[in-house]
């Protein structure tokens, strides 16, 4: 997890359509704070990850402190606090999938993407692979999430074909 943080100045993210989508959520909750998880999703969808200046922006809009927002961001595993590859791959290796060969699928993903190790991004910037705990599809081992696409019953042999769909 050692990707360098870009040195470029922060471009505001909660503007335009992203800001409008956030404000459309306000009537659905009795507090602004309750919009925190949705706001973080909006930031991640817009930028691919959630930088500290972006956390400060979210804090400002929702009336929270940057430290509080960071505490929440880092509690949840799906928010990225550093840049990741163009395609983010999550493979389940918890026991039920493990019984059905998930670790072989994970090794094939690391090899075929060139990532080498879990959490690292491939040298071409195309992929990041992480291990994830139970994807809730234990009857369809091995499930793999590529970005927002759910693929089930992935085998080690199927990995190369799967990756080819994500240039």
């Amino acid at each position, binding site marked *: 997890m050692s990707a360098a943080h870009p040195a470029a100045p922060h471009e505001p993210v909660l503007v335009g359509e992203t800001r409008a989508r956030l404000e459309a959520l306000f009537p659905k909750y009795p507090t602004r704070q309750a919009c925190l998880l949705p706001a973080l999703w909006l930031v991640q969808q817009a930028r691919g990850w959630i930088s500290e200046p972006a956390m400060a922006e979210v804090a400002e809009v929702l009336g929270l402190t940057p430290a509080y927002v960071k505490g929440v961001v880092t509690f949840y595993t799906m928010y990225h606090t550093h840049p990741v590859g163009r395609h983010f791959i999550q493979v389940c290796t918890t026991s*039920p999938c493990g019984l059905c060969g998930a670790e072989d699928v994970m090794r094939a993903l690391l090899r075929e993407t060139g990532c080498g190790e879990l959490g690292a991004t491939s040298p071409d910037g195309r992929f990041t692979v992480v291990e994830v*705990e139970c994807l809730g599809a234990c009857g369809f081992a091995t499930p793999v999430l590529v970005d927002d696409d*759910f693929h089930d019953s992935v085998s080690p042999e199927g990995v190369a074909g799967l990756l080819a769909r994500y240039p």
Partner: protein
Amino acid sequence: MGYPHPIHPKETPVLSRHFGEAEARTYDGWAARGGWEGLRTALAMAPEAVVEAVKASGLRGRGGAGFPTGLKWSFMPKPSARPHYLVCNADESEPGTFKDREIMRWTPHQLLEGVAIAAHAIHAERAYIYIRGEFTEAWAIMEAALAEAYARGALGGDALGSGRRIDVVLHRGAGAYICGEETALMNSIEGKRGNPRIKPPFPAQAGLFGMPTTINNVETLAAVPHILVRGAAWYAGLCLGSPKSTGTKLISVCGHVQRPGNYEITMGTPMRDVIFEMAGGMRPGRTLKAVIPGGSSVPVMTAEEVGRCVTDYEGVVAEGSMLGSAGMIVMDDSADLVYQLWRLARFYAHESCAQCTNCREGTGWTTRVLERILAGQGKPEDLDLLVDLGEQMTGKTICVLSDSCAAPVVSGIRKFRGEFEAYIRRERQPALATV
């Protein structure tokens, strides 16, 4: 039904009858299958009468705890100026369990209907469905169904023309097993870290945003429309075992079976029928070693216990485990139980929210001791140490995550001690590199 497999003759498909039918995902497709009649029936009834019907059905919580649903609803205070909330727990993350995902993927309107009925019953105008972040497909399907239900007037300011306001909001989780715990889930909706809260106060007194709240699992709520349409007596009559366990239950079967899937049974069906007939049994030449029957958080069962077990809340307890969420993790004789239990312990250590010491330290040390056993560095006293750790992790924390880590490990040591000792005596090749 065990989608993608056809309905097995020993199943009782009620919730799962339309799994696999893409058309059932639409408003009209669901209505053509008898959908929305449950809500129409409920809206014509007083809320208290709906609560009584659900009480009479015997329906119990399908998320794991098995608490009587109608009784839970009856704990809600009388309507006042304070808003009431309904929360649907769709944070299905219990290893071995994948039933709620299928309910949302195939029958989103079935869930919305159940949510709306429950909201009416507890005097709530707003319901939140908390869907785990990883369920991208279920999310998209639920989002489309919700938009359609609003467009057709089933939800909103005048639900099905009843004059009742029922709003439903989808809320996306972001990766945290602990948010399946009801108070952690409410904190998560409020924009907080998912730390469980000390109870009391219970949600019916002070839940979401401090207001009276009822929280139910997806499968529980999906059963409610059927109870309204077909009657409480019909539901209560679906019972082959204990009279305290009624209705149907989706059993997720995974691991070493030939046909993994969700099978819907009448409560009280023999467990051997589920594993050996519906799920097709073991692969050729293999025999059953063990089953963790309630999702991963419950004691391991031996093949002998499985052979005797009646699948309902009381029946599984009688065989020393718990029905839990009924996600059955099946292991044949090729499985390395020690390795699998280490992998589960690692799961709990990763998912501990870390606020209670006995959980934070207990899950971590359980994992590390199992790791050294698997690396061929175990000591004879390690098994007693793990059992002692398990005792320190049971009944001593705010929520049961810590208990859930101890249960499979301690029962595994009690029932399969020889497998652990083989590593400790160096009779078995290390399964992990030196730690």
